[in-house]
């Protein structure tokens, strides 16, 4: 099976959401600030539920926050 990578626009979306801080987002979705940092650095892929909660906070569809790329297509 081809390997894929999940990336996100959380940092950009936070900026356009009145420069929301990582702490504020963390509190809104119920995780620690470290988890938000890990996601922004692509070091952690969230669960589907957390992904939906993040999209809900920004008021955008899920695919505007997260994207999935197959390693082969990236090259």
């Amino acid at each position, binding site marked *: 099976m081809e390997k894929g990578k999940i990336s996100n626009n959380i940092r950009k979306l936070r900026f356009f959401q009145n420069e929301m801080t990582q702490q504020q987002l963390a509190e809104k979705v*119920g*995780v*620690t600030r*470290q988890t938000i940092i890990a996601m922004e650095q692509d*070091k*952690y892929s969230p669960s589907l539920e957390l992904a939906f909660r993040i999209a809900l906070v920004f008021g955008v569809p899920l695919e505007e926050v997260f994207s999935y790329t197959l390693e082969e297509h990236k090259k």
Partner: protein
Amino acid sequence: MSFQEKNTTVSLSIFTLILFFYLIRIFQMVKGESFTAPNLFRLWGVIAVIAVAGTILLTIFTHIAGGIVHKIKTNEDPQIEDLQDERDQIIDMKGTRVAYTFSSLGVALSMLTFVLGQSPLVMFGLLIFFGILAQVVADGWRLTLYRRGF
């Protein structure tokens, strides 16, 4: 560093020290020909007390010291994020799996000492050793996952 990451660091530090203490005491016992059941059981008791009391005390101290440093650096009241979110839980589970693997391997190796004709004391000593080692490796793995991501 998150609350859970700090706790893991404290646990790793305590159990690494305990591992060294245990190995040194076992070496001393074997060298002084005092590797007997009462001595080994006493050592086991001491280690259990150090592990529990040491972890609790050092965790409290770390959070107090961390809070003071945070206050001095930023002049803001420290916020303790004592919640364990999904990432913490996954990391914890991955660490526990590593601990189980090492413990199981330890039990199997300890049983091998019977095959080699060693006394039950050797088996018990090895069981304790692998128990501590499993904790050290698991905490090390958890910290690696916190830093490297997964």
